[in-house]
């Protein structure tokens, strides 16, 4: 809180200013009420929530990239919220719970669905250029697993427009401080409370202590632990690993969403909206193969909750079966099926799917109005993440999380398309608000102890990474080995043998990373050092995924075990909690919150 700050004397003597003060051994100290880590959709929404709650609260956003580079920018298809006559909150709740294969917490889903419309209208008032119906109301489109059209969209650049709207709106608030291109490398815990972070200022290479009365992690996903992913370079699971190392469990990490339509060889996303607009998936014989996997019949089309409008887990699993039957197409970059949009016509594609058209033309040399698009499943989203409650609070007091890096959980074993964008609004706002309340109630900071921790961290950085010369391992090779073993053992279908092999490979990589050789000795923009620190985070996240997957001896949603093909509610209607430990993570379980919707069979098609 700004008026109070001048009076807060640090224990190490003198007053701490936001401009920073050189501490011992070059660590610079700063202080804020609320610190948001990550400047994507969730982080920006959280910062605005803090600023609106009390303008005297001093809030800062620290991000390793400029906010508009965050991966929210790449979301395409849309954002679900109940607004149209004929739709109901109850229906959105039921669709989300069925989509989750009953692993979502039902109280959290209710909160999410109830608050999503208000958040979406708020974003509309902030200027988001939603596509419109002729009468000027927002337009909606159907989406996979949803029984009615309720997905708002801004053509097929919905995430881009939401991110820029939030970023530009956040510029209004004088109480927000921005740390662009600062990379958080550790959470600082004192007296059992998270009281700040250490962060590397990339421009100078200096390590800073940023003390804060509450910290909100909004660092996004971790798709980069896989070789073929829609995720940008920034999606390295930083916040998940930061929380994990601070003793906070990662929840349901075994649930990794494969989006059924990625463009080889890059992994660029072809949005689900392409199917919502009427696109179909066909195998090498031109056959709509989804009808063979419980999603048919094929006609009439388009049809909700059926065929190409089924949930993502089912569609990606169907692809694997088609490969085994030899019915996929051998492309230059592996097996593919075809997404056919030709019947939509050029006008519809230009109006509703201009980005799909641009991406296909540019990156594949294909005109979707005339040619088939080669696609295959691609790692897209982590259902799991930092364990939080519906306020965004983690078990560590003072630490909050929201967006893809968090697991509330509303997505359970499979997220429905277009639920992640409203999720980052609803829970970004909730986490920001809860963090603000926490900061108002917990004023004291143990600054001298925090400074000592920061100095230790500087020494660790120097010892472990900055002088990483004379090593034998190249970062690029380690990264390739990590992503390859994740795909081999932790892909769409898994079994104990494959998972054990991956766990062993990851343990080996943990040893190999200690022998990494870095070419770059610089302080200024040492992007190789950042890459090494990110890799270290990715390895923790990958271990949590693999060990959680090995322990879950059932098949549910996106987690399919060939050795345990059935869903097992008696043993596993539970969330997995992975705790950091020496070597392999320690796995524990937590009951799923079931309120009004008892577990049932997921039925699509028909």
């Amino acid at each position: 809180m700004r008026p109070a700050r001048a009076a807060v004397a640090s224990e190490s003597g003198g007053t701490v200013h936001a401009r920073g003060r050189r501490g011992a051994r070059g660590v610079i100290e700063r202080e804020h009420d609320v610190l948001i880590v990550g400047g994507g959709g969730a982080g920006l929404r959280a910062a605005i929530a803090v600023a609106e709650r009390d303008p005297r609260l001093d809030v800062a956003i620290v991000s390793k990239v400029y906010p508009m580079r965050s991966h929210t920018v790449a979301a395409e298809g849309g954002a679900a919220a109940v607004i149209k006559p004929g739709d109901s909150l109850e229906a959105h709740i039921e669709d989300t719970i069925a989509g989750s294969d009953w692993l979502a917490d039902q109280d959290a889903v209710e909160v999410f669905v109830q608050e999503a419309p208000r958040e979406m209208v708020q974003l509309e008032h902030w200027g988001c250029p939603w596509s419109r119906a002729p009468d000027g109301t927002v337009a909606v489109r159907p989406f996979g697993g949803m029984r009615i059209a309720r997905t708002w969209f801004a053509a097929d650049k919905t995430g881009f427009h939401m991110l820029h709207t939030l970023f530009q709106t956040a510029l209004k608030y004088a109480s927000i401080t921005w740390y662009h291109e600062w990379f958080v490398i550790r959470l600082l815990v004192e007296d059992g409370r998270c009281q700040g972070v250490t962060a590397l200022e990339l421009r100078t290479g200096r390590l800073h202590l940023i003390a804060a009365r509450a910290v909100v992690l909004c660092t996004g996903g971790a798709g980069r632990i896989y070789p073929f992913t829609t995720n940008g370079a920034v999606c390295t699971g930083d916040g998940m690993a930061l929380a994990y190392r601070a003793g906070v469990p990662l929840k349901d990490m075994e649930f990794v969403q494969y989006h059924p339509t990625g463009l080889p060889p890059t992994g660029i996303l072809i949005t689900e909206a392409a199917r919502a607009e009427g696109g179909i998936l066909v195998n090498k014989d031109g056959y709509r193969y989804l009808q063979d996997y419980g999603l048919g019949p094929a006609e009439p089309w388009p049809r909700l909750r059926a065929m190409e409008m089924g949930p993502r887990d089912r569609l990606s699993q169907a692809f694997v079966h088609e490969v085994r039957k030899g019915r996929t197409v051998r492309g230059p970059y592996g097996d593919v099926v075809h997404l056919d949009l030709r019947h939509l016509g050029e006008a519809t594609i230009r109006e509703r799917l201009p980005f799909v058209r641009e991406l296909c033309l540019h990156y594949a040399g294909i005109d979707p109005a005339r040619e088939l698009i080669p696609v295959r499943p691609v790692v897209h989203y982590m259902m799991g993440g930092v364990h939080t409650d519906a306020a965004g609070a983690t078990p560590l007091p003072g630490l909050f999380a929201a967006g893809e890096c968090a697991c509330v959980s509303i997505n359970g074993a499979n997220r429905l398309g277009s639920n992640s964008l409203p999720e980052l609004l609803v829970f970004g706002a909730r986490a920001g608000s809860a963090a603000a309340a926490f900061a108002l109630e917990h004023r004291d900071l143990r600054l001298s102890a925090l400074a000592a921790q920061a100095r230790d961290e500087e020494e660790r950085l120097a010892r472990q990474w900055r002088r990483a010369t004379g090593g034998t391992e190249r970062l690029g090779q380690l990264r390739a080995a990590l992503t390859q073993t994740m795909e081999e053992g932790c892909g769409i279908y898994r079994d104990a043998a494959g998972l054990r092999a991956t766990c062993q490979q990851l343990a080996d990589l943990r040893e190999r990373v200690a022998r990494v050789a870095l070419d770059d000795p610089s302080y200024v923009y040492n992007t190789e050092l950042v890459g090494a620190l990110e890799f270290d985070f990715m390895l923790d996240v990958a271990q949590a995924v693999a060990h959680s997957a090995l322990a879950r001896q059932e098949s549910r949603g996106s987690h399919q075990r060939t050795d345990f093909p059935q869903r097992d509610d008696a043993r596993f209607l539970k969330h997995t909690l992975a705790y950091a430990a020496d070597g392999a993570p320690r796995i524990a379980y937590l009951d799923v919150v079931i309120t009004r919707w008892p577990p049932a069979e997921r039925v699509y098609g028909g």
Partner: protein
Amino acid sequence: MAEPTITLEVWRYRPEQDTTPHLQPYQVPYRPHWVVLDAQNYIKDHLDGSVAYRWSCRMGVCGSCGMTINGVPRLSCAAFLKEYFPRPVRVEPLATFPVERDLIVDLTDFLEKLPAVRPWIVRHEAGPPDAEFRQTPEELEAYRQFSMCINCLLCYAACPVYALEPRFLGPAVLALAARYTLDSRDQGRADRHPVVAGPDGVWDCTFVGECTTVCPKDVDPAGAIQRLKLASALDWLRGVVLPWGRR
């Protein structure tokens, strides 16, 4: 047969080691589906981990990877090697910005100018409670193009005015001013006017149009600036010649 290769000449400057910038050549495999960014990542992973550059989405929407490629400001994720092969590809930092290191430029000036034009919805009266504003598809179309800017700043690198007069607000900032001013939900035209039509605003632009030529998203900042000039002139006309027409 050995895989064909292509030469990437990368502009290097490390302030801690180098006294002057220099071009460093690297031989990388030539693969027709590769963009310049793929070649850069190959260098970083296999040849030299010390080359510094920004990138993330590799699909032309995050705006991180603007650089000068064979003399032209481009996104490195959208420039294919096949456009240049077998000639070498020269990769340099974006022009007109101070260089921090290698291909990384200082964007502070843009970030400081951006809030000046109030790139958010300005309202002097409350919007509809608990419901969206009505905005027809035609009203959306009035500003949609100017909302497509990804802040890659290729337009600043191409702008001859910005190169000579760094105080100029520049193409992307002014395009965003137009984007909000033309939005039917916005009431901030008069609030933005002193900055947009001020000494560093639209009247600095000499309408060379290079910004629009290099824009990878067809935003047409030059067109946005012309729209703002027209609006500014009309405001002047209303205020001075026809004072009863003042809004």
